[in-house]
């Protein structure tokens, strides 16, 4: 019983891991053109007057706290 749960859990985790890797590395070519490397700029251009990498469109749209 534990053995099956273990193998099953491993399988699921492996699938999730590879899906995530694929997601990270193919996203750039997709239509919405999201490039993860762009996020590095969040540290480099972090003055309060700099343009955000991906701005929050409307600040009051009920973000979870």
């Amino acid at each position, binding site marked *: 019983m534990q053995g099956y749960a273990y193998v099953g859990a491993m399988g699921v*985790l492996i699938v999730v*891991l590879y899906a*995530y*890797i694929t997601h*990270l*590395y193919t996203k750039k070519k997709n239509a919405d053109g999201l490039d*993860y*490397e*762009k*996020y*590095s*700029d*969040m*540290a*480099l251009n*972090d*003055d*309060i*007057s*700099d343009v*955000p*990498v*991906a*701005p*929050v*469109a409307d*600040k009051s749209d009920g*973000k*979870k*706290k």
Partner: protein
Amino acid sequence: MENRPLEYDYTVAKWFMFAAIALGIVGMTIGVFIAFELAFPSLNLVFGQGLAEYTNFSRLRPLHTDAVAFGFTVSGIFATWYYVGQRVLKVSMAESKFLMFIGKLQFVLYILTVVAIVVSLFMGYTTSKEYAEFEWPVDIAIVVIWVLWGVSIFGLIGIRREKSLYISVWYYIATFLGVAMLYLFNNMEIPTYFASGGHGDWFHSVSAYAGTNDATVQWWYGHNAVAFVFTVPIIAMIYYFLPKESGQAIYSYKLSLLSFWGLMFVYLWCGGHHLLFSTVPDWIQTMGSVFSIVLILPSWGSAINMLLTLKGEWQQVASSPLIKFLLLASTFYMFSTLEGPVQAVKSVNAIAHFTDWIPGHVHDGTLGWVGFMIIASALHMTPRIFKREIYSKGLMTAQFWIQTLGIVFYFTSMWIAGITQGMMWRSHDEYGNLAYSFMDTVNVLHPYYTLRGIGGFLFLTGLFMWAYNIIKSASARPVEESELQSASPMGA
């Protein structure tokens, strides 16, 4: 916001930075003192027989570990959060009176709790669990402080301008959640005064777990306190300060995300490696051992990512002492995340456990990685917080080399001491009797204990130079006109 342009407000960051400096000096001074007590036991009585109860090794040892872990390091984490958090979310603390109040309240409560901890540990109130020595009233105060920090994190996130969360924020959130979970479960304790209907000392409590279970929970906590206090938030720092100071984008942002999830998943399994050959079930021990090896992958993922960030910019290492600190910190991170798994291998652990190799390992992680990162972060923040250039670059360079030498003294002496003692404990003579008495193994350690004390003293000296440099920067340098970009300006 009307007339003056909006600026980041570093008030709380500044307060916590000074707390880190003060508590770092206190904690490490005690550390150097108790290191020499081991080498020269007469120091236990140096303040006289009357005070001996409060100055002997055993009473001071928890004070040392807690002062550096929860004083120096946690202040450093809070300071950098109140600095980095604003910047990468592109929102100023000045924009929310509420968050400003929470931040200041958190600081005040934090200082009061530190005082309570110092007094109660001196008096001998301790639960005996390592890194969780505090009795229940202090635990409650700590939970309150932690919740306030959570409000601050998610509050600042709630009013952010930058939609995506930068990797450092990921790590800060993980720190918040991880420590909250670990701390609560490990400190399940029952105040005996109330449970017994009003007998004895009201400060005293008894653990909710017994024996082997208590040990399992404690080292699940103990190991992961290392994860979520000494690793996760420090990675948050390096992912911000190294790219920022060097002006280089992270080598691979994707790798940083993968390492994050890897670290989160794998770290928590490793507690069992503190309990190898104990009475904890075998499979927990084996899990601890195996996952410790796996842990090398995400750890090195982050570390290599950092080193590669400097690709093509290696001249900065030579020219900037700040980059030197950052680079050596990631190197020590790689080093101790390799050393740890090696110690977690069962056959190595059989020799290493209970010896000085363990404090040696802890210290090359904490001094080399955590210490250097907090030192570097504070030096990077100083010119921005005070709008002044750093007082002396020469002093920084000198500090770097003195402290590096100190760490090398520390871990080399403890390696030799630990392996020597471990081998002597287990050796038999030709008739199958034990070859050495316990005292033989203590006598042989004296020179190494002395060397370790000297190493600690060198590091402490550097810490004083650091404090002096920052205080001088804040007072003696002219105010800079413009907001600074990447590399921190330094005076000669």
